[in-house]
């Protein structure tokens, strides 16, 4: 059967039923457009959040601990069947030969690595607040951290200028009512107490960091920890943050130390994103499916109205499958045009949303809504919609074309 005949009949049906066709196209266009908007909004907000998250923390953190308890001498020597109340060996904290480990990692990781000392301390300034004290090397920290760009007052290099200088989060500074140049007391776990000068204030955007983290020199942190020369954390920044999981596994295999990627550190959050993605996909699928009902209705109506024409085409010798194709092509025409219009609507909606600004509680600033533009959203929304349209047309078309022409001809006569 000549394909151009089928196309010609389908096109004629679609163009002579302008109102029905437009309604069908509008249904598809709305479905596609709003789906793209939803996808852009959801992905935009998610990516924006993840970007902030990734920016405020190392992509991979190598810690001075093991994932499993070390093999005990009793097990090594005697093949013990059961052990209890074992005091783990390796009581000395810290990463052994950190400079060598870092040199080795630098030789292959796509990014950089910096040492740090992480400990807990208490800030005493008219009240006591527990914090995490991170000792850093300002010269190396700039290669692995966004801290320099997060500084609101002072610079990261100011740590080198003052003895026991510290950089504190903006939220903590507000809580303590302190500013740059003020002095606070830091109390370490061993009871060590030092007087620390605030040389800078940062804002990461993450409340738990801004309220509970203080940066100091490595030496200061070592003093607070009571462990001179210790490095208990290596911080890696990668060119591609997405590869952090793979790199972390390789680093752990090489060093034996627990290496945590940012994905692992935030696995709870990421799994909640997966649930959110599933919900969003379900909603978007439902929207596209609903819009396909418009096509189903229209093709049902057309095939019902065209029962006589179907009978005639079949009686003239057109095969059932060819007649069925006419209606599926009609749905495809409605779907394609609806999809194209939907793409325009989707883009326009996304553009409109991106012009709206909202107050971001994380950053404390008014920012435009993040929209993620991706051709994949358009392809997927359009593809699913087209599939739904042709699928929706298939059943009424099949039903209508199965009718015996004699029944219709007799009925009409």
């Amino acid at each position, binding site marked *: *059967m*000549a394909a*151009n*005949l089928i196309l*010609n*009949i389908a096109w*004629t*049906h679609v163009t*002579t039923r302008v109102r029905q066709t437009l309604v069908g196209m509008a249904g598809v266009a709305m479905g596609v457009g709003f789906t793209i908007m939803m996808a852009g909004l959801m992905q935009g907000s998610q990516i924006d959040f993840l970007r902030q998250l990734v920016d405020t923390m190392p992509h991979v953190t190598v810690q001075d601990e093991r994932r499993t308890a070390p093999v005990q001498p009793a097990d090594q020597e005697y093949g013990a069947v059961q052990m209890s109340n074992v005091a783990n060996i390796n009581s000395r904290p810290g990463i052994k030969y950190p400079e060598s480990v870092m040199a080795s990692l630098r030789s292959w990781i796509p990014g950089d690595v910096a040492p740090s000392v992480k400990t807990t301390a208490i800030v005493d300034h008219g009240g006591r607040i527990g914090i995490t004290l991170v000792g850093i090397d300002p010269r190396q920290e700039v290669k692995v951290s966004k801290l320099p760009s997060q500084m609101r007052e002072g610079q990261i290099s100011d740590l080198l200028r003052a003895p026991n200088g510290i950089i504190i989060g903006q939220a903590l500074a507000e809580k303590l009512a302190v500013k740059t140049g003020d002095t606070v007391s830091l109390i370490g776990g061993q009871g060590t107490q030092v007087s620390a000068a605030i040389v800078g204030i940062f804002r990461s955007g993450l409340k738990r960091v801004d309220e509970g983290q203080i940066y100091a020199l490595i030496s200061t942190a070592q003093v607070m920890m009571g462990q001179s020369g210790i490095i208990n954390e290596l911080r890696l920044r990668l060119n591609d943050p997405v590869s952090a999981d793979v790199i972390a596994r390789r680093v752990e295999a090489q060093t034996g130390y627990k290496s945590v990627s940012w994905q692992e550190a935030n696995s709870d959050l990421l799994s909640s994103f997966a649930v959110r993605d599933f919900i969003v996909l379900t909603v978007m699928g439902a929207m596209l499916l609903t819009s396909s009902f418009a096509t189903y209705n229209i093709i049902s109506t057309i095939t019902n109205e065209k029962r*006589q*024409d179907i*009978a*005639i*085409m*079949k*009686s*003239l*010798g*057109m*095969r*059932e499958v*060819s007649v069925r194709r006419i209606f599926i092509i009609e749905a495809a025409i409605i779907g394609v045009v609806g999809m194209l219009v939907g793409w325009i609507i989707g883009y326009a909606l996304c553009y409109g949303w991106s012009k709206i600004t909202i107050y971001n509680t994380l950053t404390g600033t008014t920012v435009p809504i993040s929209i993620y533009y991706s051709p994949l959203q358009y392809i997927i929304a359009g593809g699913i919609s087209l599939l739904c349209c042709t699928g929706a047309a298939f059943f009424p078309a099949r039903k209508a074309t199965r009718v*015996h*022409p*004699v029944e219709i*001809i*007799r009925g*009409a*006569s």
Partner: protein
Amino acid sequence: MSDVALQAVGLVRRIEGAVSHTLVNGIDLSVNKGEFLAITGPSGSGKSSLLYLLGLLDAPSAGEVIICGQPTSKLSEDDRANVRLTKCGFVFQFHFLLPEFTSLENVLLPMRAAGRMGEKEMHARGLELLASLGLEDHAHRRPNQLSGGQRQRVAIARALSNRPEIIVADEPTGALDTTSTEQVFSILREIADSGRTVVVVTHDPALAARADRRLHIVDGKIAQTFEGRASAPEPAVAAAAAPTQA
């Protein structure tokens, strides 16, 4: 080479159900090439059912329809459709033209479906057919812009478009006025005279009288056969034969 264009052997059409009903009851029939056969009979006698069987629009419960020497009872639905497309032309009581298409497009439809000619050749043939039926000025009009007689002539042009061996017409003048009726019957007569086989179902004995042979069907069986054309048409037909606008 056989002169038989259409043959029915022991043709039976039965409707099965709570109450079975036999529409066509064991008809044997042979129609020669170029013959004009009229089938008459009272309403419900089974004449249209017989015609649908002969035109492969319906499948027999028993028996065989042989078209141009080709038995059809074992053909698939697609093959039957192909025989209809290439060997049969249909004219119904109502024109059954596709309303969104022009006269020419309706005539082109079977040719396009067959796909045996190029677009230019099809257009030329479509226009030639319409012109031969006096519709050259109506080629680009839609059915709703034509009179009943004109629509039926377009339907005849459509039936002829693929140069079928057999034209099957079911009450082709049933919805026409007397003038158009005469025109359509004259056209069918000319088609038969040009060498094609024409099988027509009609209620009108006067029109049937112009056929080469008439079968009178009662209760699904051939009750009577009349050979040869009747000597003169009925007065009503003669009056309608005068040329008028259709």
